[in-house]
């Protein structure tokens, strides 16, 4: 049933937004899209999302996370220059407990101005030495495996069987392109 097919697909605001004609897209490539937030924290907030639907950042492949941070950094610089912001905040809210509102992982670049009514300050807690040591040991053990990040799988190269012959013909005809000759030279 056509209607039931559209019912079962979870409605994701960001997936819909990035494919709609009304989105203010600032950057787009194979993996990442950046656009102006429609419900900004501060005027000019930009949202960077992976094109594919991932809910939390732990699910996003490492190379896409790297790209997202790169784009967020450049947009942060753009915001400094174009909106005369005096500072920026970069915020990833991972999970409802952290304040995530849309079930699509996102990095938000928030421009900050002198005298704006925002504050991300928190009340620092004092933990006992014992608690801190326990957390340190547990986290250290798990973080020791960090490294060897996932890279993008390259597309397999399709070998064109006519290409080497064309190069040979070119060389035989007395082509002065030394690069072609170099490839055909047998050491």
């Amino acid at each position, binding site marked *: 049933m056509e209607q039931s097919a559209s019912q079962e697909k979870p409605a994701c605001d960001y997936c819909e937004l990035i494919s709609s004609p009304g989105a203010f897209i*600032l950057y787009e490539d194979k993996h990442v899209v950046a656009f102006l937030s*429609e419900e900004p924290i501060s005027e000019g907030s930009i949202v960077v999302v992976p094109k594919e639907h991932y809910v939390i950042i732990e699910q996003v492949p*490492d190379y896409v996370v790297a790209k997202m941070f790169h784009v967020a950094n450049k947009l942060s610089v753009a915001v400094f220059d174009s909106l005369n912001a005096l500072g920026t905040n*970069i*915020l990833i809210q991972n999970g409802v407990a952290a304040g995530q509102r849309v079930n699509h992982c996102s990095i938000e670049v928030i421009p900050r101005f002198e005298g704006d009514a925002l504050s991300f300050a*928190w009340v620092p807690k004092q933990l006992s030495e014992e608690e801190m040591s326990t957390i340190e040991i547990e986290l250290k053990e*798990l973080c020791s495996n*960090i490294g060897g990040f996932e890279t993008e799988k390259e597309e397999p190269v399709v070998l064109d069987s006519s290409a080497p012959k064309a190069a040979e013909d070119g060389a035989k005809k007395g082509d002065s392109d030394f690069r072609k000759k170099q490839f055909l030279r047998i050491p």
Partner: protein
Amino acid sequence: MVEISKEDLSQMTPDQIAALQKQNCIFCHIINGKVSSKKIFEDDRCIAILDINPANPGHVLLLPKEHYSILPLIPDDLVQHLGQVAKHISQACLRVLRAQGTDIFVANGAVAGQKAPHFMIHIIPRRDNDDVSAFRIPRKRALRESLLRIYEKVLPVSSELLGFKPEKKPVVDAPSSQPAPAGIPQKPGDSVPAAKKQGADLPAGSVPSLRAPSGPLPKLNIDALANAILNKPELTMPSSGSRAASATSPPAHASPSLPSSPQPPSSSRRFVASTHSNRVHAPNCPLARKIKQENRVWFSTKQEALDMGYEECDCVKGGLD
């Protein structure tokens, strides 16, 4: 730390000031081992330590080993490396501390709340209803005109930096999406795909659940609704007041009643659109459910809606007239 007068500072070159900052930077001392700290991760380019005044237990600071004060000064490859490490540390926090979410936060500049001269990424584990109110920020929907103004200012600069120019301009008149409700109605774990293997699988129950504050909407009995539309012109839409409290196996609502008045006669309520968008939907479409009462426009035939300039949503394509 060496005391420097304002006069001396004004006569120093930027390089000298940076060197002075580095000399006085406590985080550089921590990295060099001169000041003790609780290190949880270290590699050749960055280091992660526990914050001694945490927002929540397990608050981690991720610092580049080289002294940089703000993010724009950091080389691209290091930014990417820090992002990937931050993701893995967040994963470790979720696992070890049984946290229900994490906030990954960067403050660039004193105005943004940067307190230390050394760049750092904060990774703060969060729990439901914990007392950290820092990241609960109210939001307002922006006007399309103001978004367009900002877009025209930012796009030239970002295009230059990122080497991207959009092929077409955004359509300003038609809003791109309906206002988002307070939470996405879904069962926890429903639309969360299996966590990709990154060397550490999330144990069951620790994936941050995404649920609306008032609970998920009940799952509709789709076939019953479809039959209702095919056989009877009366439209039924779930009422917003009938949300199930429990997240598991919510009861099916076969014929929930439409809230609010006034309503047009039932035979003319077969298709619905919004005054704020350009698409016409079937009443059981998830997008149609999000249309505010005061913005709903009803049609008895699809052709009427198309004549008014609406476009078909996927839910009505190829279906009834």
